[in-house]
């Protein structure tokens, strides 16, 4: 088991190295340049001075090797547009994204699994139809639009919740204040993530419910609810875990949009700003952090498979 984990982590390290190379060369091939230099009003002499300060007048390969050398020593470089160390920027923003992402994931998982069970239990009856209509909506509605609609409804019209931000300006830390700010963005993000979980839960449950041991349980006279929750659900969990692994990775891309709409001080907005402003070291930093996150989540999901289904063994 330990050997397996070590092996997977080493593979992950290689994956990250490849991500860094591909990202570095792709963003440098893209047209444009850091907005501190490539600015509509900058003159050539202003621009050249800034590019020189950041060593951007050197060939791409030299710059990559230089970056790699520093990264190996734990230095991810300095933001070209913000002048702060990339590691510091990532640290400042990661907490907010984690807070938003984990809350949304929790809401989406609980909501998705409950609705999925409901849909499976009442297959082809009205609760199933309602749930599938909701999922279709969640798939179809773009997050930024839903975000603006809920802001107008809950913040502007009803005035129940704040319009944006992670916490109130200048306020002492307060869990209530945090939750009030979290409510809208986390719900919208969860709503867009949920459909996949609902559908997989429902179909996995239906699949398992047709198996021999479920029929046997029914034949033994076990109460239907017990059959569903004890016999069927536990065995339907593996595909649900698999989709959770996938959802966790799209969580990040979803939060890019949601963070912009809700003025959330997270990595998603940092990534957008860095991409628009061609802030190469920041783009690399965010990409690597996201990559590392995906590697770890996948490993955890694989380990959970084994915990849920004893037939799966990692050796």
């Amino acid at each position, binding site marked *: 088991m330990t050997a397996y984990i070590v092996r997977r982590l080493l593979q992950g390290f290689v994956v990250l190295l490849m991500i860094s190379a591909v990202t570095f060369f792709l963003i440098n091939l*893209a*047209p*444009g*340049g*850091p*907005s*501190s*230099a*490539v*600015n*509509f*009003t*900058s*003159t*050539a*002499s*202003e*621009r*050249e*001075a*800034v590019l*020189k*300060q950041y060593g951007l007048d050197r060939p791409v390969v030299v710059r990559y090797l230089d970056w790699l050398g520093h990264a190996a020593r734990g230095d991810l470089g300095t933001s*070209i*547009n*913000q*002048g*702060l160390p990339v590691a510091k920027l990532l640290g*400042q*923003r990661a907490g*907010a994204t984690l807070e938003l992402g984990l809350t949304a994931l929790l809401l989406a998982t609980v909501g998705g699994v409950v609705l999925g069970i409901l849909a499976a239990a009442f297959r082809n009856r009205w609760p199933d139809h309602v749930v599938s209509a909701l999922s279709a909506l969640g798939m179809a509605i773009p997050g*930024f639009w839903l*975000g*603006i609609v809920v*802001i*107008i409804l809950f*913040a*502007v019209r009803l*005035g129940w919740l*704040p*319009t*944006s*931000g*992670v*916490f109130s*300006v*200048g306020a002492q830390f307060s869990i209530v204040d945090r939750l009030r700010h979290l409510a809208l963005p986390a719900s919208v993000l969860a709503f867009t993530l949920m459909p996949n979980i609902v559908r997989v839960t429902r179909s996995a449950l239906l699949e398992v419910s047709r198996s021999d041991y479920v029929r046997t349980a029914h034949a033994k006279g076990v109460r239907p609810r017990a059959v569903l929750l004890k016999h069927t659900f536990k065995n339907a969990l593996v595909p649900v875990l698999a989709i959770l692994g996938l959802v966790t990775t799209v969580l990040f891309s979803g939060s890019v949009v949601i963070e*912009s*709409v*809700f*003025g959330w*001080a*997270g990595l998603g*907005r*940092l990534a*957008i*700003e860095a991409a*628009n*402003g*061609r802030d190469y070291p920041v783009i690399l930093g965010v990409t690597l952090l996201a990559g590392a996150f995906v590697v770890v989540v996948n490993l955890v999901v694989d380990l959970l498979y084994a915990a849920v289904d004893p037939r799966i063994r990692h050796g």
Partner: protein
Amino acid sequence: MRTKSGPRWKSLMLPMLAALAIAGSLSAQAQATTPSGTLTFVTNADPTLNPWTPGAVIESNLINTILFDQLTRYSTTDLTPAPDLATSWEAAPDAMSWIFHLRSGVKWSDGQPFGADDVAFTFNKVILNKDLGANNSSVFSPVDHVEVVDPLTVRFVLKSPFSSLPYYLAYFAGILPAHVLQDAPNPLQVASFNKSNPVVTGPFKVAEFVTGSYVRLEPNPDYWGPQPKVKTIVFKEVSDANTQLAQLLAGSVDMVTVTNPTLLAGVEHNPNLEVIRQSQNIWYWVALNQGDPRFTDVRVRQALLTAIDRKAIIDSVLKGYGTVATGPIAPLQKAFYDANVPSYAYDPAKAKELLAEAGWTPGPNGILQKDGKPLTITMPTGQFGYLVNATLLVQQYWKAIGVDVKVNVMEWNAYIQEVVVKRNYQATLAWWSTPPTPDITPYFSSAAAERGNNIPNYKSPELDALMAQARSATNQQDEIKVVQTIQQNVAQNLPYLFLWYPDIITVLNKRVGGMATINTPTAFQYAADWYVKP
């Protein structure tokens, strides 16, 4: 500039007028002695709290305007230079230097005294240091260096006459504290200053900077002027334009500048909000690359402008918020603006005639051609504001007279790389936002072609000479005369095709008081006068 008596007189009068105005507003609001209330503004990203740091642009400009005093600021009545950290100034008779007399008793927010050394440091070590690439530093290229005459007097020693210097000193040109930044390897990249707590002389200073969330300002007790009347100013980071307006409607933000007039629908009828139309020295243009021999014929440039129905574009794309441009000097510069120049009213038949005179006649497929080559123009455009829509309309108008236009829509940063950095375009539509000075040298001079802000790469020795003459004028009458000749010259020769002067639309919560209405950058230079209505 200006005779010795001119600016002196004006700079002495202005503080008196300002004092009268302040006295008036104080009695009107029954004198609040302790600052109270909070004003909240939006910004679209983390600001950089140093006006000269490359990359400190739109997200930082207004905050920095509050924090950093300048030598001059704009008068709230006519946008001429008014006293700020300098109380008066005069040019030498030979126009080769300027003396600025500094305000006495000014302190930095860390308690240290402000003086001539700070001004000399800001110019000699920061702006004129070419290695730093400071924002906007190229406009100060006529300045050789700044000399300290005495602790409260500086002399700007010039390489060539520079009558518009006091205007540029009011344009996002904050003075930096020498004692804080002079030992830094790069004074523009001091994180503890730029991203946390800068030392300033303005009416407010930074109380809290929460990255990604907001910057909170509080009154600066060491401020040289009357103490601010507002207790807290917050700049919230909200990048999405729709969310910004939603926040304005919810009352959680007090002011938003609307760049896209179509978004105004929801706010125009809100009883708490006031929609203000302001004029700034902004002009939109089409540049025709002068490296392309087809566009060096002035008749072709005149024809292409005559073919565009600018009024119709203003009505559709700008929802009427704008006026047809006649040149680079906007009507708000009342003393200098000349409306009596060739104006190229929409006339497609006339456009075709002019092109025929230049040798462009309709080919078999209806496309104009000359020597067997069709008149095909590639026109890159960037995704920013309404540039794409306006470009597509220009394409249609040109198509109507037989010009084949290939529009290439690009992401904004990539567009800048192609058009501004590489000058790789034939025609393109964009705008300049300039200080309210009649000095147009940065956008038109031959020296600014290829490497500077002369995007069309237009080179005219005649225009260069006129602009140099305007810069050496020593009184306003002479300057007005030259500037009128310049306006005639550019309207005739069309280095740029002048399109329109857009109105800037600011939506303000009616509870905000004391804010100058002339335009936003100027309003933020007088933040000490703001108050929150009860």
